[in-house]
């Protein structure tokens, strides 16, 4: 199974159309390997993006340098995946 240790999901709040466009620029940078869970659409609609560990620093610097607000929605994806797997295995063990 692919490992998502250190991957974070950022919830970005674009205040205006210019900021939405800025975030869209990020979308085109394939080397960042961003996974948009909720696409940049228009101001006021949250943008959720999964950021691999290797890209986190540069993405946060980019957002902060453009004054774009964000919060960390998920600190570490792998922690939630481990939780999900544990829950499923516990069920399967009981079922067996």
């Amino acid at each position, binding site marked *: 199974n692919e490992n998502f240790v250190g991957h974070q999901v950022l919830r970005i709040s674009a205040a205006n159309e210019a900021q939405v466009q800025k975030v869209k620029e990020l979308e085109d940078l*394939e080397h960042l390997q961003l996974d948009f869970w909720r696409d940049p659409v228009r101001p006021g609609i949250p943008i959720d993006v999964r950021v691999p560990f290797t890209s986190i620093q540069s993405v946060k610097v980019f957002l902060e340098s453009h004054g774009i607000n964000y919060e960390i929605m*998920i600190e570490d*994806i792998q922690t939630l995946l481990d939780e999900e797997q544990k829950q499923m295995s516990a069920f399967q063990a009981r079922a067996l």
Partner: protein
Amino acid sequence: STKTFNYATYHTLDEIYEFMDLLVTENPQLVSKIQIGNTFEGRPIYVLKFSTGGTNRPAIWIDTGIHSREWVTQASGVWFAKKITEDYGQDAAFTAILDNMDIFLEIVTNPDGFAYTHKTNRMWRKTRSRTQGSLCVGVDPNRNWDAGFGLAGASSNPCSDTYHGKFANSEVEVKSIVDFVTNHGNIKAFISIHSYSQLLLYPYGYTSEPAPDKEELDQLAKSAVTALTSLYGTKYKYGSIIDTIYQASGSTVDWTYSQGIKYSFTFELRDTGLRGFLLPASQIIPTAEETWLALLTIMDHTFKHPY
């Protein structure tokens, strides 16, 4: 049995297929399993048919899991299947619907992708088809339909998560539904269920042209969302795809609407706790319960407004 089946946990593809067989065995008069095709990797694609008789009755189609990582949708689909068998003959309004209409429920609409989320990459969304000339895999099955195919609102890059594919219906998972719907010819409502962001959407996605039935669809969406929110207070927005979220071309409900299926809707189910696609299993049943109230509203309206 489906009585001891655990609806409050996520299941693998095999467990869901086993559940389907159990449900059919326990309800042979009401439920049958139809194979509508095989996936790119050769897995069977199953649809559950709920029917109380007649031939080619007007029908309602519900599908979940077209985007494989949206696990709460397949899990809700399993719950809906059980709910249908429990409520028929118990709930008067629902019994009236099923006494006059059939329901088709495709729980795992993207089996290859779903198996891949369990085995390899939990974040996988697309199909697992191969694109000649590219190292990237998969097509977004919600951009592959023949409605505004390839227009703005999808990507022509095979590595993108919204890659529309080489041509409309290139994905066998999509083509199988297209053929089924076309051959059936009497489907009156088509509901495709995604997650997340708590939205109820109707056509169009590929154009800002209002759908001819926009007024009625908007009213029905409002009623359905009101019913959904009444249970646990989960807040939904509703509207056309392009107005409410973004331009999306080649989408399922734009095609079904273009086929004359007036009541074409897309759900984006919950996340209420900032978990996105990783919704805790503890939220499966409440999500399914609230969504069912919205589905009932749409099914009841479809039944009472034949066309």
